[in-house]
């Protein structure tokens, strides 16, 4: 069962952004894909030069589709037509890894389910899905970039142009939404950041 999400305005535990940290999940994600030699990855944004360069120098083909900017544009529309996700139009079984970052923190359950289904289709067998979620409401409701630095250190850079409503999900709600995937590893940092690494099971079809 999917637990309901809650908007941050109902969460009184507003916090300033945590400082940078060394990401164990990111290291595992990158190390695993680098070993393939010809991996294709997808980054859903926000657009970040450091991250694009980091992955483009390590993967055979690195795709970027800034879903945060897309979300900002969609949120500005009064009516939704139902074909919004056409923007996220990649072939099936195309990627070895997808970096969702904290996109899920900005999606309602219906959109989150849609996103997870699409990611599942786009990933190859045993493909990896990496995601991050904040435990507490950020003081300012704007999206952030998780900027990759030396030694898999990740620093958080706010994106003032991406003011988006933020949602909170407990671990159980998150993993339940991603129940088609195998959870490989998860970390909870004292800074209030949760990281998850999921894997698409190897299916007969793939």
């Amino acid at each position, binding site marked *: 069962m999917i637990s309901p999400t809650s908007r941050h305005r109902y969460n009184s535990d507003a916090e300033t952004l945590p400082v940078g940290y060394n990401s164990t999940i990111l290291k595992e994600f990158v190390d695993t894909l680098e070993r393939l030699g010809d991996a294709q990855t997808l980054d859903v944004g926000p657009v970040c030069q450091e991250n694009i360069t980091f992955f483009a120098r390590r993967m055979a083909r690195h795709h970027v589709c800034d879903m945060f900017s897309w979300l900002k544009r969609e949120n500005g529309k009064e009516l939704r037509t139902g074909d919004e996700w056409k923007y996220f139009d990649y072939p099936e079984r195309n990627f070895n890894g997808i970096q969702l970052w904290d996109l899920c923190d900005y999606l309602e359950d219906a959109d989150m389910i849609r996103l997870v289904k699409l990611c599942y289709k786009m990933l190859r067998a045993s493909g990896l899905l990496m995601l991050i979620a904040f435990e507490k409401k950020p003081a300012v409701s704007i999206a952030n970039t998780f900027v990759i630095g030396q030694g898999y250190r990740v620093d958080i850079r706010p994106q003032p142009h991406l003011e988006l409503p933020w949602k909170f999900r407990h671990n159980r709600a998150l993993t339940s939404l991603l129940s088609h995937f195998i959870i490989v590893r998860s970390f909870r*940092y004292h800074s209030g950041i949760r990281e998850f690494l999921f894997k698409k099971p190897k299916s007969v079809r793939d």
Partner: protein
Amino acid sequence: MLKRPKKDENNTSFPAAGTAEVKPTPPTPSPNVSPERYTSEEKTTIGERITIEGSIRGDENLTIEGAMKGNIEMGKHNFSIGPNGRIDGEIHAQDVTINGQFKGTIKALGKVAVTKKADFNGEIKAKSFSVEDGAYFKGVVELDREPHKQPAAAEIPRGPSVPEAAKKPIVPRTDVKVEK
């Protein structure tokens, strides 16, 4: 409108370190002059009210402020799209700066720079790349790759031969990591 020749005073792309105080010098008619030196002196701008359908081949730097559909071949010279420029096609150049709308493929010998004013949808193959936060970007980026690790005993099983270790079921682990 074609404006030529034009000094590079408004060209904000790819500023070289330590060039702020460089005084303009007349071009030296030497056959050994480097392309970079030559291209820093010459630049053509295609104005906002110009629409081109076809292909362009050039031997000096070019900026398009208008609309263009087709291929652009600049060799070892730089190319840029102005803030109101719209291009649909393929670009081959030394360095490329995107300030406006672009849809297509860029193959650069040097750097591709996408500014926050840009709306980019396409593929980039270049030596280096920069993008400003705030740019609309959907695409593929291929840069010169770092030597990657040799494929080891596959952590991700691929193909029919799967090592014994990889056949074991994944045990979900939830760890708590303390960051000081």
